[in-house]
Protein backbone atom coordinates (compact mmCIF):
# COMPACT_ATOMS: atom_id res chain seq x y z
CA UNK A 1 0.00 0.00 0.00
CA UNK A 2 1.39 3.38 -1.04
CA UNK A 3 2.26 5.87 1.68
CA UNK A 4 -0.16 8.80 1.58
CA UNK A 5 1.41 12.13 0.77
CA UNK A 6 1.61 14.51 3.72
CA UNK A 7 -0.77 17.44 3.59
CA UNK A 8 0.59 20.64 2.10
CA UNK A 9 0.03 23.84 4.02
CA UNK A 10 0.52 27.21 2.36
CA UNK A 11 1.99 30.09 4.30
CA UNK A 12 3.77 33.33 3.52
CA UNK A 13 6.35 35.53 5.18
CA UNK A 14 7.71 38.97 4.48
CA UNK A 15 11.50 39.01 4.13
CA UNK A 16 13.65 42.09 3.53
CA UNK A 17 16.85 42.13 1.49
CA UNK A 18 19.23 44.54 3.21
CA UNK A 19 22.69 45.78 2.38
CA UNK A 20 24.69 48.56 0.78
CA UNK A 21 24.36 49.76 -2.76
CA UNK A 22 25.76 47.34 -5.38
CA UNK A 23 26.44 44.41 -3.05
CA UNK A 24 24.29 42.26 -5.33
CA UNK A 25 20.92 42.08 -3.56
CA UNK A 26 18.88 42.30 -6.75
CA UNK A 27 21.21 40.04 -8.72
CA UNK A 28 21.10 37.49 -5.90
CA UNK A 29 17.38 37.00 -6.24
CA UNK A 30 16.82 37.73 -9.91
CA UNK A 31 17.44 34.20 -11.12
CA UNK A 32 15.59 32.47 -8.35
CA UNK A 33 12.36 34.33 -7.85
CA UNK A 34 8.97 34.94 -9.43
CA UNK A 35 9.12 38.47 -10.75
CA UNK A 36 6.21 40.64 -11.78
CA UNK A 37 7.57 44.15 -11.47
CA UNK A 38 10.44 46.01 -13.08
CA UNK A 39 13.66 46.68 -11.13
CA UNK A 40 13.09 50.38 -11.78
CA UNK A 41 10.81 50.52 -8.72
CA UNK A 42 13.90 50.06 -6.54
CA UNK A 43 15.30 53.37 -7.71
CA UNK A 44 11.94 55.16 -7.92
CA UNK A 45 10.06 54.21 -4.75
CA UNK A 46 12.96 52.43 -3.06
CA UNK A 47 11.61 48.90 -3.05
CA UNK A 48 10.56 46.08 -5.31
CA UNK A 49 8.58 43.05 -4.25
CA UNK A 50 9.18 39.57 -5.63
CA UNK A 51 8.39 36.05 -4.46
CA UNK A 52 10.32 32.87 -3.75
CA UNK A 53 8.66 29.62 -2.74
CA UNK A 54 10.42 27.01 -0.62
CA UNK A 55 9.07 23.68 0.54
CA UNK A 56 9.82 23.00 4.20
CA UNK A 57 9.18 19.39 5.21
CA UNK A 58 7.80 18.89 8.69
CA UNK A 59 6.98 15.81 10.72
CA UNK A 60 3.31 15.70 9.78
CA UNK A 61 3.05 18.00 6.77
CA UNK A 62 4.90 19.98 4.14
CA UNK A 63 4.82 23.73 4.45
CA UNK A 64 4.92 25.53 1.12
CA UNK A 65 6.30 28.86 2.27
CA UNK A 66 6.07 31.93 0.04
CA UNK A 67 8.89 34.30 0.85
CA UNK A 68 7.64 37.74 -0.16
CA UNK A 69 10.96 39.46 -0.78
CA UNK A 70 11.15 43.21 -0.30
CA UNK A 71 14.32 44.26 -2.13
CA UNK A 72 15.17 47.60 -0.52
CA UNK A 73 17.37 50.14 -2.27
CA UNK A 74 20.77 50.33 -0.59
CA UNK A 75 22.26 53.76 -0.06
CA UNK A 76 24.97 55.62 1.78
CA UNK A 77 22.59 57.52 4.04
CA UNK A 78 19.75 56.12 6.08
CA UNK A 79 16.37 56.82 4.50
CA UNK A 80 13.44 56.92 6.98
CA UNK A 81 11.14 55.25 4.52
CA UNK A 82 13.28 52.11 4.78
CA UNK A 83 12.11 51.64 8.37
CA UNK A 84 8.53 51.74 7.11
CA UNK A 85 9.28 49.17 4.44
CA UNK A 86 10.79 46.89 7.11
CA UNK A 87 7.59 46.78 9.18
CA UNK A 88 6.09 43.35 9.61
CA UNK A 89 9.16 41.54 8.27
CA UNK A 90 9.58 38.05 9.68
CA UNK A 91 13.15 37.85 8.49
CA UNK A 92 15.93 39.41 6.48
CA UNK A 93 18.69 38.43 4.10
CA UNK A 94 21.70 40.58 4.95
CA UNK A 95 23.99 40.94 1.97
CA UNK A 96 27.62 42.02 1.99
CA UNK A 97 30.22 42.11 -0.78
CA UNK A 98 33.32 40.00 -0.20
CA UNK A 99 35.38 42.43 -2.31
CA UNK A 100 34.37 45.50 -0.25
CA UNK A 101 35.16 45.23 3.45
CA UNK A 102 33.03 48.16 4.60
CA UNK A 103 29.82 46.46 3.40
CA UNK A 104 30.04 43.99 6.29
CA UNK A 105 30.39 46.67 8.99
CA UNK A 106 27.48 48.63 7.53
CA UNK A 107 25.18 45.65 8.08
CA UNK A 108 25.18 46.52 11.79
CA UNK A 109 23.00 49.55 11.05
CA UNK A 110 20.55 47.49 8.98
CA UNK A 111 20.28 44.89 11.75
CA UNK A 112 19.57 47.60 14.32
CA UNK A 113 16.94 49.25 12.09
CA UNK A 114 15.11 45.98 11.45
CA UNK A 115 15.16 44.93 15.09
CA UNK A 116 13.58 48.27 16.01
CA UNK A 117 10.48 47.54 13.93
CA UNK A 118 10.56 43.71 14.04
CA UNK A 119 12.37 42.56 17.19
CA UNK A 120 11.81 38.87 16.50
CA UNK A 121 13.12 38.90 12.92
CA UNK A 122 15.27 36.01 11.73
CA UNK A 123 18.52 36.75 9.86
CA UNK A 124 20.66 34.97 7.30
CA UNK A 125 23.86 36.45 5.95
CA UNK A 126 24.85 36.25 2.28
CA UNK A 127 28.54 36.99 1.73
CA UNK A 128 28.08 37.70 -1.95
CA UNK A 129 30.41 37.89 -4.97
CA UNK A 130 32.41 35.01 -3.53
CA UNK A 131 33.39 34.05 -7.08
CA UNK A 132 35.40 37.28 -7.50
CA UNK A 133 38.94 37.87 -6.28
CA UNK A 134 40.65 39.31 -4.39
CA UNK A 135 38.50 39.20 -1.28
CA UNK A 136 38.76 42.13 1.12
CA UNK A 137 36.95 40.10 3.76
CA UNK A 138 38.10 36.81 5.19
CA UNK A 139 35.90 33.83 5.90
CA UNK A 140 36.67 34.16 9.59
CA UNK A 141 35.53 37.79 9.68
CA UNK A 142 32.24 36.97 8.01
CA UNK A 143 31.57 33.95 10.22
CA UNK A 144 32.40 35.93 13.35
CA UNK A 145 29.95 38.67 12.34
CA UNK A 146 27.24 36.11 11.59
CA UNK A 147 27.70 34.41 14.94
CA UNK A 148 27.50 37.73 16.77
CA UNK A 149 24.09 38.56 15.30
CA UNK A 150 22.84 34.98 15.47
CA UNK A 151 22.63 34.45 11.73
CA UNK A 152 23.50 31.54 9.46
CA UNK A 153 26.09 32.51 6.91
CA UNK A 154 26.48 31.53 3.25
CA UNK A 155 29.19 32.40 0.73
CA UNK A 156 27.08 33.11 -2.30
CA UNK A 157 27.55 34.07 -5.89
CA UNK A 158 24.71 35.56 -7.89
CA UNK A 159 26.75 34.84 -11.00
CA UNK A 160 27.23 31.10 -10.44
CA UNK A 161 24.21 30.55 -8.17
CA UNK A 162 26.40 29.02 -5.54
CA UNK A 163 24.70 28.61 -2.15
CA UNK A 164 21.67 30.75 -3.11
CA UNK A 165 19.05 28.01 -2.99
CA UNK A 166 20.61 26.70 0.20
CA UNK A 167 20.33 30.14 1.77
CA UNK A 168 16.62 30.44 0.97
CA UNK A 169 15.89 26.89 2.16
CA UNK A 170 17.59 27.59 5.47
CA UNK A 171 15.74 30.88 5.87
CA UNK A 172 12.47 29.12 5.13
CA UNK A 173 13.24 26.43 7.68
CA UNK A 174 13.99 28.99 10.37
CA UNK A 175 10.82 30.95 9.62
CA UNK A 176 8.58 27.89 9.79
CA UNK A 177 10.27 26.85 13.02
CA UNK A 178 9.56 30.30 14.44
CA UNK A 179 5.90 30.05 13.36
CA UNK A 180 5.57 26.64 14.96
CA UNK A 181 7.15 27.98 18.14
CA UNK A 182 4.67 30.86 18.25
CA UNK A 183 1.73 28.56 17.52
CA UNK A 184 2.52 26.10 20.31
Amino acid at each position, binding site marked *: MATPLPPVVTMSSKVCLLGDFAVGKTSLVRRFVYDLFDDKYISTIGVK*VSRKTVAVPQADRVVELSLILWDLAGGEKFDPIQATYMRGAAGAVLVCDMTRAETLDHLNAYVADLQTVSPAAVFVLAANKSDLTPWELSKAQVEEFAERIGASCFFTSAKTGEEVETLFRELGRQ*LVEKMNGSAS
Partner: protein
Amino acid sequence: MNESEQRDPRVAPRDAAPEIEPTPPPLDSGPGAGEQAAEENPLTALREILLREERRRHQEEIRALQAEISRLEGQLADQDALVETIAPILGTAIQRQIRESKEEMIEALYPIIGQLVMRAVTQAMRDLARSIDERLRTTFDKESLLRRLKAWITGVPEAELAMREALPFQVQEIFLIHLPSGLLLWHAPQEAEDPARSELISGMLTAIQDFASHALGDEPSEERLGELQYQERLILLEFGARAYAAVVVEGVPPLDFRPALRQAVLEFEAENRSLLASYQGDPSALRGSAQKHFQTFIDHPASALAQTA
Protein backbone atom coordinates in the same frame (compact mmCIF):
# COMPACT_ATOMS: atom_id res chain seq x y z
CA MET B 1 40.42 85.34 -107.77
CA ASN B 2 40.79 81.72 -108.68
CA GLU B 3 38.60 78.92 -107.25
CA SER B 4 40.96 77.79 -104.53
CA GLU B 5 41.34 81.26 -103.23
CA GLN B 6 37.59 81.68 -103.18
CA ARG B 7 37.07 78.49 -101.16
CA ASP B 8 39.83 78.97 -98.64
CA PRO B 9 38.54 81.17 -95.86
CA ARG B 10 42.05 82.02 -94.83
CA VAL B 11 42.55 83.88 -97.95
CA ALA B 12 40.91 87.24 -97.94
CA PRO B 13 38.96 88.09 -101.05
CA ARG B 14 40.82 90.37 -103.43
CA ASP B 15 38.23 93.06 -103.23
CA ALA B 16 38.02 93.00 -99.42
CA ALA B 17 39.36 96.01 -97.66
CA PRO B 18 42.81 95.36 -96.34
CA GLU B 19 42.95 94.69 -92.57
CA ILE B 20 44.21 97.63 -90.68
CA GLU B 21 46.52 96.95 -87.77
CA PRO B 22 45.32 98.68 -84.61
CA THR B 23 47.46 101.66 -84.06
CA PRO B 24 49.07 101.87 -80.68
CA PRO B 25 47.73 104.72 -78.60
CA PRO B 26 49.71 107.86 -78.85
CA LEU B 27 52.24 108.25 -76.14
CA ASP B 28 50.65 111.37 -74.81
CA SER B 29 46.89 110.18 -74.63
CA GLY B 30 46.65 109.89 -70.79
CA PRO B 31 48.40 108.33 -67.79
CA GLY B 32 46.51 104.90 -67.53
CA ALA B 33 45.28 104.35 -70.99
CA GLY B 34 48.35 102.67 -72.30
CA GLU B 35 48.83 100.58 -69.18
CA GLN B 36 45.20 99.35 -69.15
CA ALA B 37 45.56 97.61 -72.41
CA ALA B 38 48.87 96.13 -71.45
CA GLU B 39 47.52 94.91 -68.08
CA GLU B 40 44.16 93.50 -69.18
CA ASN B 41 45.35 90.04 -70.20
CA PRO B 42 47.73 89.64 -67.22
CA LEU B 43 44.89 90.58 -64.76
CA THR B 44 42.59 87.99 -66.21
CA ALA B 45 45.31 85.44 -65.91
CA LEU B 46 46.03 86.50 -62.33
CA ARG B 47 42.32 86.33 -61.44
CA GLU B 48 42.14 82.88 -62.92
CA ILE B 49 45.09 81.73 -60.84
CA LEU B 50 43.78 83.23 -57.62
CA LEU B 51 40.20 82.02 -57.95
CA ARG B 52 40.84 78.60 -59.48
CA GLU B 53 40.77 76.77 -56.11
CA GLU B 54 37.70 78.60 -54.88
CA ARG B 55 35.83 77.92 -58.13
CA ARG B 56 36.72 74.23 -57.90
CA ARG B 57 35.39 74.14 -54.31
CA HIS B 58 32.20 75.88 -55.30
CA GLN B 59 31.62 73.46 -58.11
CA GLU B 60 32.04 70.52 -55.76
CA GLU B 61 29.57 72.09 -53.32
CA ILE B 62 27.10 72.66 -56.11
CA ARG B 63 27.42 69.04 -57.20
CA ALA B 64 26.86 67.86 -53.62
CA LEU B 65 23.83 70.11 -53.22
CA GLN B 66 22.40 68.87 -56.49
CA ALA B 67 22.79 65.28 -55.28
CA GLU B 68 21.07 66.16 -51.98
CA ILE B 69 18.23 67.87 -53.82
CA SER B 70 17.79 64.80 -56.03
CA ARG B 71 17.71 62.60 -52.93
CA LEU B 72 15.12 64.79 -51.24
CA GLU B 73 13.02 64.86 -54.40
CA GLY B 74 13.16 61.09 -54.44
CA GLN B 75 12.12 60.93 -50.80
CA LEU B 76 9.25 63.32 -51.33
CA ALA B 77 8.05 61.22 -54.19
CA ASP B 78 8.18 58.06 -51.99
CA GLN B 79 5.29 58.35 -49.52
CA ASP B 80 6.43 55.55 -47.22
CA ALA B 81 9.87 57.08 -46.83
CA LEU B 82 8.32 60.49 -46.21
CA VAL B 83 6.07 59.11 -43.48
CA GLU B 84 9.02 57.38 -41.83
CA THR B 85 10.99 60.63 -41.82
CA ILE B 86 8.21 62.79 -40.43
CA ALA B 87 6.65 60.36 -37.92
CA PRO B 88 9.21 60.73 -35.11
CA ILE B 89 8.78 64.49 -34.92
CA LEU B 90 5.07 64.63 -35.57
CA GLY B 91 4.10 64.07 -31.95
CA THR B 92 6.42 66.80 -30.70
CA ALA B 93 5.27 69.17 -33.43
CA ILE B 94 1.61 68.62 -32.54
CA GLN B 95 2.29 69.21 -28.85
CA ARG B 96 4.09 72.43 -29.60
CA GLN B 97 1.35 73.55 -31.93
CA ILE B 98 -1.30 72.85 -29.32
CA ARG B 99 0.70 74.86 -26.80
CA GLU B 100 1.33 77.83 -29.07
CA SER B 101 -1.88 77.92 -31.09
CA LYS B 102 -4.49 76.37 -28.85
CA GLU B 103 -7.48 78.12 -30.36
CA GLU B 104 -6.55 77.25 -33.93
CA MET B 105 -6.03 73.60 -32.99
CA ILE B 106 -9.41 73.46 -31.28
CA GLU B 107 -11.06 74.98 -34.34
CA ALA B 108 -9.39 72.44 -36.58
CA LEU B 109 -10.07 69.36 -34.44
CA TYR B 110 -13.48 70.23 -33.04
CA PRO B 111 -15.55 68.97 -35.97
CA ILE B 112 -13.86 65.54 -35.82
CA ILE B 113 -13.64 65.05 -32.06
CA GLY B 114 -17.12 66.40 -31.55
CA GLN B 115 -18.56 63.73 -33.82
CA LEU B 116 -16.56 60.96 -32.19
CA VAL B 117 -17.66 61.96 -28.70
CA MET B 118 -21.27 62.33 -29.78
CA ARG B 119 -21.29 58.89 -31.25
CA ALA B 120 -19.85 57.35 -28.08
CA VAL B 121 -22.25 59.26 -25.81
CA THR B 122 -25.25 58.35 -27.97
CA GLN B 123 -24.40 54.68 -27.74
CA ALA B 124 -23.89 54.91 -23.98
CA MET B 125 -27.22 56.71 -23.50
CA ARG B 126 -28.96 54.11 -25.64
CA ASP B 127 -27.57 51.33 -23.46
CA LEU B 128 -28.56 53.21 -20.30
CA ALA B 129 -32.10 53.82 -21.54
CA ARG B 130 -32.46 50.12 -22.40
CA SER B 131 -31.25 49.18 -18.94
CA ILE B 132 -33.63 51.59 -17.21
CA ASP B 133 -36.54 50.31 -19.31
CA GLU B 134 -35.85 46.76 -18.25
CA ARG B 135 -35.75 47.72 -14.60
CA LEU B 136 -38.93 49.77 -14.70
CA ARG B 137 -40.86 47.07 -16.54
CA THR B 138 -40.32 44.49 -13.77
CA THR B 139 -43.19 45.61 -11.60
CA PHE B 140 -43.33 43.10 -8.82
CA ASP B 141 -39.81 41.80 -8.16
CA LYS B 142 -38.10 42.40 -4.83
CA GLU B 143 -35.65 44.98 -6.15
CA SER B 144 -38.28 47.16 -7.77
CA LEU B 145 -40.46 47.06 -4.63
CA LEU B 146 -37.44 48.04 -2.54
CA ARG B 147 -36.68 50.84 -4.97
CA ARG B 148 -40.24 52.18 -4.74
CA LEU B 149 -40.04 52.10 -0.97
CA LYS B 150 -36.71 53.93 -1.06
CA ALA B 151 -38.13 56.51 -3.46
CA TRP B 152 -41.11 57.08 -1.18
CA ILE B 153 -38.90 57.45 1.94
CA THR B 154 -36.19 59.63 0.41
CA GLY B 155 -38.36 61.67 -1.90
CA VAL B 156 -36.09 60.87 -4.86
CA PRO B 157 -38.15 59.92 -7.95
CA GLU B 158 -38.11 56.22 -8.70
CA ALA B 159 -36.93 56.85 -12.27
CA GLU B 160 -33.86 58.66 -10.96
CA LEU B 161 -33.11 55.80 -8.58
CA ALA B 162 -33.52 53.37 -11.45
CA MET B 163 -31.12 55.44 -13.53
CA ARG B 164 -28.54 55.46 -10.78
CA GLU B 165 -28.83 51.70 -10.39
CA ALA B 166 -28.49 51.27 -14.13
CA LEU B 167 -25.10 53.05 -14.29
CA PRO B 168 -22.50 50.39 -14.97
CA PHE B 169 -20.52 49.29 -11.93
CA GLN B 170 -18.66 46.08 -11.33
CA VAL B 171 -16.41 44.83 -8.55
CA GLN B 172 -13.66 42.87 -10.28
CA GLU B 173 -11.27 41.88 -7.50
CA ILE B 174 -10.88 42.20 -3.76
CA PHE B 175 -7.56 41.93 -1.94
CA LEU B 176 -7.64 41.68 1.83
CA ILE B 177 -4.17 42.58 3.08
CA HIS B 178 -2.37 42.47 6.42
CA LEU B 179 -1.44 46.10 7.00
CA PRO B 180 2.02 45.98 8.66
CA SER B 181 3.54 43.30 6.42
CA GLY B 182 1.59 43.64 3.17
CA LEU B 183 0.93 39.89 3.17
CA LEU B 184 -2.19 38.70 1.38
CA LEU B 185 -4.90 37.43 3.70
CA TRP B 186 -7.62 36.67 1.15
CA HIS B 187 -8.38 37.31 -2.49
CA ALA B 188 -11.44 36.98 -4.73
CA PRO B 189 -12.43 35.90 -7.26
CA GLN B 190 -10.42 32.77 -6.83
CA GLU B 191 -11.10 30.99 -10.11
CA ALA B 192 -8.09 31.02 -12.45
CA GLU B 193 -6.15 32.72 -9.66
CA ASP B 194 -2.43 33.03 -9.85
CA PRO B 195 -1.42 33.12 -6.16
CA ALA B 196 1.98 34.58 -6.95
CA ARG B 197 0.44 37.51 -8.81
CA SER B 198 -2.02 38.25 -6.00
CA GLU B 199 0.72 38.12 -3.36
CA LEU B 200 3.01 40.42 -5.29
CA ILE B 201 0.25 42.94 -5.97
CA SER B 202 -0.56 42.99 -2.25
CA GLY B 203 3.07 43.64 -1.41
CA MET B 204 3.55 46.38 -3.97
CA LEU B 205 0.24 48.07 -3.05
CA THR B 206 1.46 48.22 0.54
CA ALA B 207 4.85 49.57 -0.57
CA ILE B 208 3.15 52.23 -2.70
CA GLN B 209 0.91 53.12 0.22
CA ASP B 210 3.98 53.47 2.50
CA PHE B 211 5.76 55.57 -0.11
CA ALA B 212 2.77 57.88 -0.61
CA SER B 213 2.36 58.35 3.13
CA HIS B 214 6.02 59.33 3.46
CA ALA B 215 6.11 61.51 0.40
CA LEU B 216 2.82 63.33 0.85
CA GLY B 217 1.61 62.90 4.43
CA ASP B 218 2.50 64.92 7.50
CA GLU B 219 2.17 61.96 9.84
CA PRO B 220 3.07 58.88 7.83
CA SER B 221 1.21 56.51 10.11
CA GLU B 222 -2.01 58.54 9.95
CA GLU B 223 -2.42 59.47 6.29
CA ARG B 224 -3.47 56.84 3.79
CA LEU B 225 -3.98 56.56 0.07
CA GLY B 226 -7.69 56.48 -0.65
CA GLU B 227 -7.78 55.23 -4.20
CA LEU B 228 -5.72 54.62 -7.30
CA GLN B 229 -7.11 55.20 -10.76
CA TYR B 230 -5.95 53.51 -13.93
CA GLN B 231 -7.90 54.15 -17.14
CA GLU B 232 -11.48 53.10 -16.46
CA ARG B 233 -10.56 51.08 -13.35
CA LEU B 234 -10.40 52.28 -9.79
CA ILE B 235 -8.68 50.62 -6.84
CA LEU B 236 -10.49 51.67 -3.68
CA LEU B 237 -8.57 51.31 -0.41
CA GLU B 238 -10.30 51.06 2.96
CA PHE B 239 -8.22 50.72 6.11
CA GLY B 240 -8.67 49.20 9.52
CA ALA B 241 -6.01 49.10 12.21
CA ARG B 242 -4.35 45.85 11.09
CA ALA B 243 -5.85 45.04 7.72
CA TYR B 244 -7.07 46.84 4.67
CA ALA B 245 -9.15 46.03 1.63
CA ALA B 246 -8.11 46.95 -1.90
CA VAL B 247 -11.06 46.64 -4.25
CA VAL B 248 -10.70 46.86 -8.02
CA VAL B 249 -13.88 48.30 -9.55
CA GLU B 250 -15.02 49.37 -12.96
CA GLY B 251 -17.62 52.08 -13.39
CA VAL B 252 -19.09 54.52 -10.88
CA PRO B 253 -19.28 53.19 -7.31
CA PRO B 254 -22.60 53.93 -5.58
CA LEU B 255 -22.43 56.53 -2.84
CA ASP B 256 -22.80 53.99 -0.06
CA PHE B 257 -20.24 51.54 -1.46
CA ARG B 258 -17.24 52.85 0.45
CA PRO B 259 -19.03 53.09 3.81
CA ALA B 260 -20.22 49.51 3.30
CA LEU B 261 -16.69 48.39 2.50
CA ARG B 262 -15.27 50.20 5.52
CA GLN B 263 -17.87 48.59 7.72
CA ALA B 264 -16.94 45.16 6.38
CA VAL B 265 -13.23 45.78 7.15
CA LEU B 266 -14.01 46.89 10.71
CA GLU B 267 -16.29 43.90 11.34
CA PHE B 268 -13.67 41.52 9.96
CA GLU B 269 -11.03 43.04 12.25
CA ALA B 270 -13.29 42.88 15.28
CA GLU B 271 -13.93 39.20 14.62
CA ASN B 272 -10.24 38.34 14.19
CA ARG B 273 -8.49 40.80 16.48
CA SER B 274 -6.06 38.43 18.19
CA LEU B 275 -5.22 36.49 14.99
CA LEU B 276 -4.39 39.72 13.17
CA ALA B 277 -2.34 41.08 16.09
CA SER B 278 -0.06 38.03 16.06
CA TYR B 279 -0.30 37.19 12.35
CA GLN B 280 2.63 35.03 11.22
CA GLY B 281 1.68 34.21 7.67
CA ASP B 282 -0.93 31.43 7.85
CA PRO B 283 -4.16 32.82 6.35
CA SER B 284 -6.18 29.61 6.63
CA ALA B 285 -7.82 30.60 9.92
CA LEU B 286 -9.03 33.88 8.42
CA ARG B 287 -10.47 32.58 5.17
CA GLY B 288 -13.93 31.78 6.42
CA SER B 289 -14.41 35.16 8.05
CA ALA B 290 -13.03 37.00 5.02
CA GLN B 291 -15.38 35.15 2.71
CA LYS B 292 -18.35 35.92 4.94
CA HIS B 293 -17.67 39.66 4.97
CA PHE B 294 -16.34 40.30 1.44
CA GLN B 295 -17.49 37.66 -1.04
CA THR B 296 -20.85 39.35 -1.35
CA PHE B 297 -19.20 42.50 -2.76
CA ILE B 298 -18.11 40.44 -5.74
CA ASP B 299 -21.20 38.30 -6.16
CA HIS B 300 -24.03 40.71 -5.29
CA PRO B 301 -22.79 44.26 -4.69
CA ALA B 302 -26.34 45.57 -4.22
CA SER B 303 -26.99 43.04 -1.47
CA ALA B 304 -23.72 44.02 0.23
CA LEU B 305 -24.86 47.64 0.34
CA ALA B 306 -28.34 46.67 1.56
CA GLN B 307 -26.86 44.61 4.39
CA THR B 308 -24.94 47.51 5.78
CA ALA B 309 -27.68 50.11 5.12
